[in-house]
């Protein structure tokens, strides 16, 4: 094994592999920062270009695109409050308020460094723990998926600004929108409202573009004032300061990376969930949880380190079991098979150089983000903050319409995007915000699938009257239930502690 690790490392340290990493990072950065362009789309388009490459070079290029596209989603999340990828939803929660406070560049650079650190930490963990982590992943059944979704939905409490009931209502509205189209278990069409175009359901990315980008666009037009800026009074942001913000609290970045890695390994959960879970944990562990959502850089660190760590996580089941953990990993599986390589445990034995080389290349891609991200990040950030508003607004509108259309080459998607956007803009004034709606949209289908499958299994195992027992029989389910309960009761515990501290302080 040690020989394979060394040969894998040496294979990706050649100039050709390094150049591919750099090209892949630039392409991925562009893809991630355009709402509607997805890593899956970019990888699928790149696969034919890798036919003539050797398998390792192909995987190095595809891996770099995947890593950088996850990071690129942070740009629009921070600058225009529109996550370029679903994984960057949590980034916008603190990144955008930072940008509004004149710290746009600091937020971008913090996201860059956090992505680099998260990427590197996850690669180290994958190299050391790929096999045992896979063991955990394959124990996930429908009941565990259901509980993962419930755990995610319990984060609505953390994401809600204002009334919890309205936050939960937003989550339920997101889940309701997620039920439009063909039912995953019964196979019947639901809520088509007489239009066959809704048969395919509401595409997640289309919905996210709508609920995040359109309200911002309308607000910019209504106020006719720039909302994000860079404070140049102290000069440009120094990288050493950004490193201090990111790594000065090592527990946050390590915990978030590990969460990202574990969630990334679970097929289907992916980085959409990873960022949100890590954000919630960061908020819960912080001494000042109330500052989250108002421009706390640790929120950006948690979200970005975890969603980049999830990339390495999603390739673990791909390489060890041949099970892709995410849609982009599924495209990479296809690329491997096109090159005549069958993933599985034998991959590490028979083609160890390829397997370990690919894992190392993900780490190199994460490091390349530091160069590409710092240069590209500053340029994009300054462009968005200085380009005249008259150009900024129609450019965002153009990108949202182009992105929504290109998801499924459908004009119906453009109307859905605009409609959901206007809806999100209106309901925001009544206390129902975009983040809980997005969470419901992402987790609703996972919860429905898991619940339905678990009930079917339960019916076969325990009979129809006790089918629900299937949700509680596995120790992994207990662990997830405990985490959910903890997430729900923690704010109350924290409040009580705070009150006690205040009381003892006033007594002294």
């Amino acid at each position, binding site marked *: 094994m040690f020989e394979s690790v060394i040969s894998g490392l040496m294979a990706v340290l050649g100039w050709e592999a390094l150049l591919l990493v750099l090209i892949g990072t630039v392409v991925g950065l562009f893809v991630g920062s355009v709402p509607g362009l997805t890593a899956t*789309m970019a990888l699928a*388009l790149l696969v034919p270009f890798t036919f003539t490459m050797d398998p390792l070079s192909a995987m190095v290029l595809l891996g770099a695109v995947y890593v950088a596209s996850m990071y690129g989603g942070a740009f629009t999340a921070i600058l225009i409050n529109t996550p370029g990828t679903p994984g960057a939803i949590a980034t916008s929660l603190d990144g955008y308020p930072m940008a509004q406070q004149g710290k746009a560049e600091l937020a971008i650079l913090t996201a860059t460094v956090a992505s680099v650190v998260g990427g590197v930490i996850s690669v180290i963990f994958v190299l050391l723990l790929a096999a045992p982590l896979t063991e955990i992943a394959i124990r996930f059944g429908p009941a565990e998926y259901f509980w993962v979704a419930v755990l995610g939905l319990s984060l609505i409490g953390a994401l809600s600004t*204002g*009334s919890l*009931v*309205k936050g*939960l*209502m937003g989550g*339920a*509205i997101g*889940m*309701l929108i997620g*039920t439009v189209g063909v*039912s995953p*278990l*019964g*196979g*019947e069409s*639901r*809520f088509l409202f007489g239009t066959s175009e809704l048969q395919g359901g509401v595409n997640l990315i289309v919905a996210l573009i709508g609920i995040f980008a359109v309200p911002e*666009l*309308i*607000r*910019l*037009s*209504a*106020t*006719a*004032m720039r909302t994000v800026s860079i404070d140049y009074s102290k000069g440009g942001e120094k990288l050493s300061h950004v490193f201090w913000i990111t790594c000065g609290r090592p527990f946050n970045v390590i915990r978030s990376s590990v969460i990202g890695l574990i969630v990334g390994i679970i097929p289907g959960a992916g980085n959409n969930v990873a960022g949100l879970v890590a954000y919630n944990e960061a908020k819960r562990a912080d001494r000042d949880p109330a500052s989250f959502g108002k421009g706390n850089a640790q929120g950006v660190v948690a979200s970005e380190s975890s969603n980049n760590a999830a990339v390495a996580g999603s390739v673990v089941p791909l390489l060890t079991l041949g099970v892709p953990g995410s849609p982009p990993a599924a495209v990479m599986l296809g690329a491997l098979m096109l090159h005549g390589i069958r993933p599985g445990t034998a991959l590490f034995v028979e083609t160890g150089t390829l397997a370990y080389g690919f894992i190392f290349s993900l780490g190199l891609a994460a490091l390349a983000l530091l160069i590409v991200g710092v240069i590209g990040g500053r340029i994009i950030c300054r462009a968005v903050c200085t380009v*005249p*508003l*008259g*150009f900024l*607004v*129609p*450019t965002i*509108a*153009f990108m949202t*319409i*182009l992105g929504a*259309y*290109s998801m499924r*080459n459908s*004009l119906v998607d*453009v*109307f859905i995007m*605009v409609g959901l*956007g*206007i809806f999100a*803009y209106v*309901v925001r*004034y*009544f*206390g*129902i915000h975009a983040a809980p709606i997005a969470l419901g949209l992402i987790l*609703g289908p996972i*919860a*429905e699938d898991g*619940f*339905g499958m678990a009930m079917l299994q339960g019916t076969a195992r325990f009979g129809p009257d006790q089918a629900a027992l299937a949700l509680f029989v596995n120790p992994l389910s207990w662990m997830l239930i405990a985490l959910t309960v903890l997430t729900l009761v923690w704010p109350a515990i924290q409040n009580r502690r705070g009150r006690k501290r205040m009381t003892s302080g006033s007594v002294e």
Partner: protein
Amino acid sequence: MNAKNFNTDIIAGLGALGLALVFWFAREPWTPLSARWPNAILVFIFASAAFLLVRAFIRPERGPIFDEGSKLRMLIAAALLILWASLIEHLGFMVTSVLVFYGFWWYVTRAAKKVEGDTSPISLFAYLRAAVVTVLLVGSFHFIFTKYLYVPLPRGILM
């Protein structure tokens, strides 16, 4: 300027109730496998809407609504987006995008000047520059998406 505060609980509660009713009556006789999940969500929305409506009369949340910027500009921005989406099928992606992009630029630039207190008209140079930028930006993305990303954007009148 003091913005008027509204009882947002009653608006959110009634809105959610309306939405849930629309979906409730759009249900069909599905099998339990397909029906259980949406039914559960709808019941939850009904329950939380009822909670908000009760709270609206006891201890309501109050806040300003649509208080950011001009309401007219807000409506025009939403209308321009709907117009953009509606015209693509008839005029094609390229023509629609150039026209609406340019219209959007003119409207937002004018509004921004007004907000900044600048009463001078938009210069001819600015009009020309915006036209060039619009055509270049829309054209380059159209080219990349159709030629390299194989996205068949509607051609409309350019057929």
